[in-house]
């Protein structure tokens, strides 16, 4: 048993980290705030050139042929840097949708809502060329499809919660695309959830690091505020939440990559390998939702008044955490899945 990042994974992480530091510095990312298009074309191209989008594409088709676990490692880096754009959809579409791997086609994810009364919204309507359409979880049999942006009627919001991840309102129910994707919608959904959770882990780590740095630098009452237990203990709890979430995320990625391990572990709980995979993925998403929402909220609190200013970047992590804890699925849905697989 080996739960450490492999040498290749460390190299992947560090290499991507270097690219992100060059292309997606905080200043560079913040230039996209309130832009109608948040994607910086040159930066996006750099990600494509680094192989981010063709990460899952088999080597025989010119991709990197890497695993979901590798993808999780990569997306954590992107989340930490708040990189804007339809990263996850594009990664999952590459190999099927022309141009996704190369960075010329930007692919979002359009998930139909499970709450009938609340119409869905569309992520990044000004940036995406098309969408992976995931049917409602209740409609388990329906396949995932691809739909061009031009085939969706949606209105860009004048003001989105997250300036770096704007959304649009769907003007009518989402219809299935014409291009049917291989693999089940169910499997695609699990992968999308895992990568989203990885982005959340990056956000949580970013928020925690900002908070720790601020707590060391900021003096009040003649002491760094990080020497007060009220602050220290908040941050210790966030670290505990984050490390647990990250461990479960990596575990869930590993069993997604290796159905044989899922089968062995599932046996202990009386679950099939797919059920074990779902339990692991839903649990990971739930824990990562909590880690990201909590670490970013705590970051605002630790920064005090400064945390409530637009200038300090914690709110960007906070808002993005809300986006990723909402769009594809909610924590409540994840908790219900885990419960249904606990017996």
């Amino acid at each position, binding site marked *: 048993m080996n739960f450490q990042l492999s040498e290749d994974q460390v190299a992947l992480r560090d290499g991507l980290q270097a690219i992100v530091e060059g292309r997606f510095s905080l200043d560079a990312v913040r230039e996209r705030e309130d832009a109608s298009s948040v994607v910086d074309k040159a930066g996006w191209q750099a990600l494509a050139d680094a192989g981010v989008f063709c990460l899952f594409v088999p080597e025989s088709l010119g991709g990197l042929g890497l695993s979901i676990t590798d993808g999780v490692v990569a997306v954590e880096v992107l989340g930490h840097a708040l990189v804007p754009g339809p990263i996850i959809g594009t990664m999952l579409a590459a190999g099927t949708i022309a141009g996704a791997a190369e960075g010329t086609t930007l692919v979002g994810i359009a998930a139909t809502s499970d709450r009938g009364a609340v119409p869905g919204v569309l992520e990044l309507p000004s940036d995406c060329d098309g969408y992976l359409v995931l049917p409602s979880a209740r409609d388990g049999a329906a396949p995932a499809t691809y739909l061009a942006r031009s085939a969706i009627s949606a209105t860009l919001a004048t003001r989105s919660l997250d300036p770096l991840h704007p959304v649009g309102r769907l003007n009518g129910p989402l219809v299935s695309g014409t291009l049917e994707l291989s693999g089940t919608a169910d499997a695609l959904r699990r992968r999308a959830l895992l990568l989203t959770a990885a982005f959340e882990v990056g956000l949580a780590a970013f928020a925690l690091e900002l908070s720790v740095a601020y707590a060391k630098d900021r003096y009040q009452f003649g002491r760094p505020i990080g020497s007060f237990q009220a602050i220290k203990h908040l941050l210790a709890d966030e670290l505990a939440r984050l490390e647990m979430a990250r461990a479960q995320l990596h575990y869930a990625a590993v069993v997604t990559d290796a159905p044989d391990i899922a089968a062995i572990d599932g046996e202990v709980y009386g679950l099939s390998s797919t059920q074990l995979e779902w339990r692991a993925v839903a649990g990971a998403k739930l824990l990562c939702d909590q880690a990201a929402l909590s670490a970013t909220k705590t970051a605002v*609190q630790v920064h*005090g008044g400064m945390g409530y200013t637009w200038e300090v970047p914690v709110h960007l992590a906070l808002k993005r955490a809300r986006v990723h804890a909402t769009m594809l699925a909610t924590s409540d849905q994840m908790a219900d899945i885990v419960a249904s697989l606990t017996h």
Partner: protein
Amino acid sequence: MDLRATPAEEAFRADLRAWLAATLPTLPEKALHTDWQARRAYDTNWQGLLHAAGYAGIDWPVEAGGRGASPVEQLIFKEECERAGAPYVGLGFVGLLHAGPTINAEGTLAQRTTYLPKILSGEHVWCQGFSEPGSGSDLASMRTRAVLDGDHYVVSGSKIWTSHAEVADYCELLVRTGTEASRHKGITWLIMDMKSPGIDVRPLKTISGSTEFAELFMDEVRIPVENRVGEENDGWRVTMVTLSFERGTGFVGELLESMRLLRELTELAKRTGAYGDPGIRRRIGHLAATFDGLWALTKRTVSEAQATGIPGIGGTVFKLSYSEAGQKMADLAMELLGDAGLLFDDVTHATDGQSLGNADHVENWIKSFNLTIAAGTSQIQRNIVSERILGLPKEPTVGAKK
């Protein structure tokens, strides 16, 4: 213990209710949130109407031109205003709730005569220059410096979280006149004319995207000594005198607004079907019980203030519980909204075609983060409660680090 209104209280409520019913329909359209001049005009107009009707400075002593209402009447006033949908105190809040009462308590006759009437009538808007970028929770570490030069103080430094500084006429300003080590004992309270040369006001954008606060930069601003309220180096005491001026009614407007938001949320939960989920219902029940409890606590605090002149512990513990409940409600709203919580543009319900009211709830969610920060972080509140009420020992003073 008798919660019945006295005949005087009943009459006060009836008169006020009638006046509000007659007056509110005559108000102009609300100003755009971002148009500060228009907001000033709107708010000062409302203050003028209150003034004419005898409701200006409801909590001010009669001698100062206020109504001198009892704490219970003040509560009734806030309750009726909120329930009738009357405007908030708005841009007038620093003048009416803090600078005015301070000047009345500690100012000279000349200061009282010069400044108080125009605060009450709505003519003058005040802003507050207390917090500094380096002095948030630890206000006594402020560094904005005032040096006496003849009959003027010459002030240099910067302030932050100054509300509505762009449209204010005066600023209640705390400056350091003693050494930095003097902390509380070297601070002086000044009245600064916002038209003085050397003042630079820069809007401060908050995470909600709004700019109701500003940073205030002062470069050798000259303030006449006659604008000093209280003695030199006695500004901390002067400030504290009126910090407890609001006898437990400081958050009444916010609390009543939260109760309204919760009713709207309950309605929203019914429309989306979430109300059928007992877990969601229990969260609504917990919040409603908490707000009810805070409302009872407010009444008790006001009643204590009326009976004894001292608001008691209710006012001190209120904010801790209210802030936490407010954040929980905001989180619940976001969960109920789902995807519709990701934008401010109106999203309509798929079945009934009506707005989900998402913009208000999202705005409220963002603002909820400030509940545990502004006006004393929850961490500072807990220090105060544990030391002043429970009598727990203070932390050791920083000194001999090993």
